[in-house]
């Protein structure tokens, strides 16, 4: 079929054109932040070779549903909805070409390239953003219950320990059970008999009903105490104990407010229609203005009308935001959340996650990889350098050893490089650092097929065959070994692709494409060059191989 040189040349030209075409910048639709700040689809032309996160810099997150706080009813559905929420959040955050996809049964992978503030991006993806408004314990039912709680704590062997009972920061850091640390103070029973109860000793009265202040240094201990069973059992029905999101300072000391709030929410973020961040001109505070849906507004008006004069806590992800304000009058669809000292950017991030909606279930990050942009740049530079040197070495060896035939092989190598890059582009493969390494490695391997063939030709020449016959026999006899040897490499690379993660997969793809390209080059392109060479020289001359 490809017997004549002319038909062989046509195939080679077609392959070259195909490779070039796959590298021609194509129209790609990407989402970009426009001049007005909104995300929109833009069509740009670009070379269809993506760079991986390890070269570009960026953040890779793997998230799973966090069931530590309680089982999630329908994890599959929750994950699917979480995907939508994260997508719209990332969209609003303004990352070009994010990758957000479900991997396996229980995982979401988010890849954001070129991010300069990984911490912020992470918070935006991970935050549950579950917003609710709840009334505080107006009747002081929790405070009245405190003596009983203290008694049951003492019965359980917990005493009003000194600060010494606090766990060290390291233990908290590494997740040591702080309740266990509280229990360890139990041995010291003598001091507790006449003193105040274990919990009461840590609490100071706040300024509104249902508010208590805990010195910041006692916060871990108090937190572990209220998680204990005797306390949870005795908290009055319909109430929850909820910490404030931030400590407040009074004088020189810093306190963490604890709130007793009603379990029932007056309204939740599901009824939220819009949220915007702004700066309050009068006191320079960041605030988030929100608008509820029509039905949500109606319900909120009804609820707030019944509770004028009461205090209403704004809770986000199970924490109370700022001191609960008093309801001076009924509130309809519009309201605001005051953020105090928070920066406008923080307010904007909060408004963003509120607008995009709450996650249906809390998510936890099970894997995180961040690569700084400078490391990626270095990697590209060093990888390219190594590739060039490797290429030069290979060219030197081939021409030095095989002379004219070596020049043909090197020419073939140029085609090999073109086919590999073209192949990678047409598969839409992602270029990673191990991928670059794979390319350099396959440069060395690409000459292997040539070496096999050339050695065969030399052997055939030695047996006294004419150049033309020797070339034919050399190519034919080398084929089984070339195929068998490359099949095993392709198979191991396929397993790497199957079981590998991002960068390693890039390596596997480069290796597979490189091997296929080297096969085409060696058995087809280089052979054609040989045929042309044989045709142009006198038939009797010795073969320069």
């Amino acid at each position, binding site marked *: 079929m490809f017997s004549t040189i002319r038909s062989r040349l046509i195939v080679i030209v077609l392959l070259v054109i195909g490779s070039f075409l796959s590298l021609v910048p194509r129209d790609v639709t990407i989402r970009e932040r426009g001049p007005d700040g909104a995300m929109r689809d833009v069509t740009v032309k670009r070379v269809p070779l993506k760079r991986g996160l*390890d070269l570009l810099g960026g953040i890779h997150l793997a998230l*799973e549903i966090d069931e*530590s706080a309680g089982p999630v009813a329908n994890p599959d559905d929750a994950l699917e909805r979480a995907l939508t929420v994260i997508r719209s959040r990332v969209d609003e955050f303004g990352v070009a070409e994010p990758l957000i996809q479900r991997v396996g049964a229980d995982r979401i992978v988010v890849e954001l390239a070129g991010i300069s503030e990984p911490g912020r991006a992470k918070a935006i993806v991970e935050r549950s953003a579950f917003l609710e408004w709840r009334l505080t314990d107006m009747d002081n039912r929790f405070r009245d219950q405190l003596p009983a709680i203290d008694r049951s704590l003492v019965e359980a062997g917990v005493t009003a320990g000194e600060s010494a009972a606090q766990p*060290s*920061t*390291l233990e908290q*850091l*590494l*997740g040591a059970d702080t309740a266990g640390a509280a229990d360890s103070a139990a041995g010291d029973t003598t001091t507790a008999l006449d003193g105040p109860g274990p919990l009461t000793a840590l609490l100071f009265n706040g300024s509104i009903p249902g508010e208590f202040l805990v010195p910041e240094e006692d916060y871990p201990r108090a937190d572990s105490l209220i998680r204990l069973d005797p306390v949870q059992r005795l908290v009055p029905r319909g109430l929850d104990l909820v910490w404030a999101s931030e400590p407040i300072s009074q004088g020189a000391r810093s306190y963490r407010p604890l709130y007793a709030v009603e379990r029932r929410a007056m309204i939740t973020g599901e009824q939220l229609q819009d949220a915007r961040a702004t700066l309050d001109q009068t006191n320079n505070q960041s605030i988030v203005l929100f608008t509820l849906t029509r039905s949500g507004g109606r319900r909120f008006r009804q609820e707030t009308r019944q509770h004028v004069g009461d205090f209403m806590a704004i809770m986000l992800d199970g924490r109370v935001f700022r001191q609960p304000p008093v309801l001076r009058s009924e509130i309809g669809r519009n309201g605001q959340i005051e953020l105090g000292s928070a920066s406008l950017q923080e307010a904007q991030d909060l408004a963003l996650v509120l607008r995009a909606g709450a996650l249906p279930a809390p998510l*936890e*990050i*099970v*894997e*995180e*990889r*961040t*690569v*700084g942009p*400078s*490391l990626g740049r*270095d*990697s590209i530079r*060093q*990888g390219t350098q*190594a*590739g060039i*040197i*490797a290429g030069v*070495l290979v060219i030197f*060896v081939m021409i030095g*050893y095989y002379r004219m035939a070596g020049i043909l092989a090197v020419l073939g190598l140029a085609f090999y490089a073109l086919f590999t890059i073209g192949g990678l582009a047409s598969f839409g493969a992602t270029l990673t*650092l*191990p991928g670059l*390494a*794979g390319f*350099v*490695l396959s440069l*060395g*391997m690409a000459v*292997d097929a040539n*070496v096999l063939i050339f*050695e065969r030709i030399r*052997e055939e020449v030695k047996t006294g065959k004419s150049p033309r016959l020797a070339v034919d026999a050399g190519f034919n006899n080398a084929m089984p*070994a070339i195929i068998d*040897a*490359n099949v*095993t*490499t*392709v*198979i*191991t*690379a396929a*397993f790497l692709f199957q*079981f*590998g*993660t991002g*960068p390693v997969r890039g*390596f596997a793809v480069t*290796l597979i494409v490189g091997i296929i390209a080297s096969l085409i080059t060696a058995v087809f392109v280089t052979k054609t060059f040989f045929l042309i060479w044989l045709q142009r020289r006198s038939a009797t001359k010795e073969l*320069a191989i």
Partner: protein
Amino acid sequence: MLRLFDNAQYNVMRHWRAAVIVTSVFVIPGLALFGVHGLNTSIEFTGGTLIQVHANDPAINTAGIRAALGAAGITGAEIQTFGAPDEFVIRARLDPRSEQTDATTQETRDAVRDALNGAFSPEAFEVDRAEAVSPKVSGELRERATLALLLGLGATFLVLWFRYEWRFGLAAVIATVHDVIATVAFVSYLNLEISLVVVAALLTLIGYSLNDTIVTFDRVRENVKRSKRQDYFYDILNRSINETLPRTVLTSGTTLSAVLALLILGGSVIRPFAWVMAFGIVVGTFSSIFIASPVLLWVERRWPSEDVKVVKGAGMSAPAPA
């Protein structure tokens, strides 16, 4: 005209005892070392956190970072320079058997970052890389890496079985397993960190080393077909090794020079990969010359094949070729 190993007539097979000794001397202490220290696996496989910091301020050093972490209550973290004197890697590995929760991995990472921010000015350093892998994910990655290695070996064995007869396949697999074990010993001498990329290098090495062996065995198969009745299998093996020697050396040479370029110039992130590949190429070449064929002879003597008549009478003590 340059000719390497042209018309070589080495009696390679005779040196099988020496090859076994060389291999044992290299591998056994390496494996013993590995037994004592265990493998230096990356946080991908143990779970934990890693932060790579590039210091712009020469005053920042390992001791300074340790002090900063210590002041924040983080002790026991592993701090090393990485590739260059101003690059530091801070690792906090999790013990895979402990009951660490996923949340603490993240918290540790954040705490390390906070500690650095507290101790040094923002301009003094930049975070080049940060990774946090929870025990659940690291367990999965361990499993996948093991599966990839085992299935990769198994699948290549199947291909060899299909393309050749099983004796060749078995000998090739034994030679390859030898290469993998020798490389593990090498990794243990250098105390290289085993990451996913290093496992990828190991798998590539399997493919590459088989490549060498297959070319030799392919020649063996061809020579067996051509052989006369009185030929010894021992001699056929020797002849096949010698005939493929120029190719083996040249291919290994070019591939090795490409990998050396990667090792020297490729940067610190890719260096472990390049080390494993470089050693793998050397040991793969060694084994395809000195290990694979003697093993094939041993297999043929143990389970003589019916169809290859020439094999009968093959022995380790056969005369050297004239």
